[in-house]
């Protein structure tokens, strides 16, 4: 897959926080105060960013191309929903259960799919999301089938903050969880573990030849990515109090891939930019043309693939590099 890569991360670099890395958080806080009517949409964007970040860990850094990542997002969403309905409505407890269950599901399925490569890997991950979709569809007594689970009970956050109608609590909750997920992924990709993932992405045969346990490392990353995707799914269930089949569809797997490519693969922040641009563009285009908005998204993606292989961030990098070179 000829996707442009971000700068190499490894032993010669520094993991110190760059001021530009604070921009997404400053932007999110600005949205909270300046655009309160957009908080429900904002919370959704934050959830999808976490989902895209989990995909970036395995695709952008691990080089594992998957069409089935929505299986873990949906699995986490349903686990959180069923747990809230049948066991307990505490959101943090539900989040932890969804993370643990998605990690276990990711480890079990990853152990099989990561033994394959290329087309076989794509087909297996595609089959995985289809199987999870059908289980959710047919197991109606637990999942609600095609109707999904409505009015999922969600308790107060930390026993003090109620999920309000305007989405303030939901937004801050999603922002805090995203920040934790971002810190985890950022630490990982800057670590020797992350460097070895990039090594396997660049040249798996050589990683074997230097004695690296490639399969075990990829499985660890895959499990963690599944857990993060599950957490993102659980957040969606808790903030909307609903879980339906759309969270575990092949379309969602494709969409999240498109969003990541749009933002820039293997850059961490491509997972922030891509979903934001995609969802805002979809929102805007759907208002302008409810019938043909997908056409606009398609044109946007074609332009990115043709003229900016590194996504929007890759394009920005290129422009910045040209500007630096042109300075006397």
């Amino acid at each position, binding site marked *: 897959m000829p996707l442009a890569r971000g700068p190499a991360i490894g032993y010669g670099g520094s993991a110190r926080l760059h001021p530009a890395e604070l921009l997404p958080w400053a932007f999110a806080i600005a949205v909270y105060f300046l655009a309160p009517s957009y908080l429900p949409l904002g919370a959704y964007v934050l959830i999808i960013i976490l989902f895209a970040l989990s995909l970036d860990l395995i695709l952008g850094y691990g080089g594992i191309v998957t069409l089935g990542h929505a299986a873990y997002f949906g699995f986490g969403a349903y686990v959180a929903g069923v747990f809230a309905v049948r066991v307990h409505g505490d959101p943090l407890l539900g989040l932890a259960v969804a993370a643990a269950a998605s990690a276990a599901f990711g480890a079990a399925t990853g152990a099989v799919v990561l033994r394959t490569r290329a087309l076989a890997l794509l087909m297996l991950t595609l089959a995985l999301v289809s199987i999870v979709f059908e289980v959710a569809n047919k197991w109606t007594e637990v999942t609600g089938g095609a109707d999904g689970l409505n009015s999922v009970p969600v308790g107060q956050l930390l026993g003090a903050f109620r999920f309000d109608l305007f989405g303030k609590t939901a937004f801050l909750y999603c922002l805090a969880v995203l920040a934790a997920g971002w810190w985890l992924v950022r*630490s990982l990709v800057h670590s020797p573990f992350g*460097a070895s993932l990039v090594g396997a992405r*660049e040249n798996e045969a050589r990683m074997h030849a230097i*004695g690296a346990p490639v399969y075990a490392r990829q499985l660890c990353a895959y499990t963690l990515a599944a857990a993060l995707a599950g957490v993102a799914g659980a957040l969606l269930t808790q903030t909307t109090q609903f879980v339906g089949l759309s969270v575990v569809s092949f379309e969602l797997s494709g969409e999240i891939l498109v969003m990541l490519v749009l933002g820039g693969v293997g850059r961490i922040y491509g997972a922030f930019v891509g979903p934001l641009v995609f969802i805002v563009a979809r929102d805007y285009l759907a208002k302008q043309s409810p019938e043909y908005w997908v056409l606009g998204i398609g044109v946007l993606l074609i332009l990115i693939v043709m003229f900016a292989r590194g996504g929007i961030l890759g394009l920005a990098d290129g422009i910045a590099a040209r500007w630096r070179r042109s300075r006397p």
Partner: protein
Amino acid sequence: MSDALLQTSGLCKSFGALTVADNIEFRLEPGARHALIGPNGAGKTTFVNMLTGQLPPSAGRIEFAGEDVTRLGQAARVKRGLGRTFQINTLFGALSVLDNVALGVAERRGVGGRAWRAAGSHREVRDESLELLASLGLADDAASRTVDLPYGKQRLVEIALALGLRPKVLLLDEPAAGVPSTESQRVLDVLGRLPAGVAILIIEHDMELVFRFAQRITVLVRGQILCEGAPREIAADARVREVYLGDAHG
């Protein structure tokens, strides 16, 4: 004869009806400078791939430092001290030269899987990698993207990456292959300065290099060992001349 560091007995490899290694009995002594030569298709790279665990043998046994490693995986053999370079550059092209070497050094030091500290803060890995690059004359290229280097330098990065594993045995698969004559002298110089304690098995087509470097030569033809001996003996062997030069010159 001292105890062999690396030894094969009855090593065979077949792909269906095609036999590419046939009952190979081979010994590599500690600190050896040993060359494996033979015409194209003789099975040299297949033999190396079996030694490293990249390819399972159809039959036979491989012993490394007295231990049977025939069924061990590639990573386990590397951990025991069996390093290699590849005939065609097999590097991390998009990564810096420093990162290429550091990935190997980190694995050897057992920090390659650590996730709780930034890679750049493992100074011991970075310093050792930079020292190794300096010893091969690559210090100025440490920050360069590997794929941007001239081919000759990339061959040196191949060697640096293998040396970062501090192998007891280093298998060099055509280290000078594809290197332009203007850069080949540098590869030769580096080969001449490889640590004396490391046993080296070199596969090479360049006979001038082989005869300058090796103290012992094994000739492989159609998957079988034709003969083995000191360079002078091999040069004088009529069967070797026949293999390389054909009947008209035999």
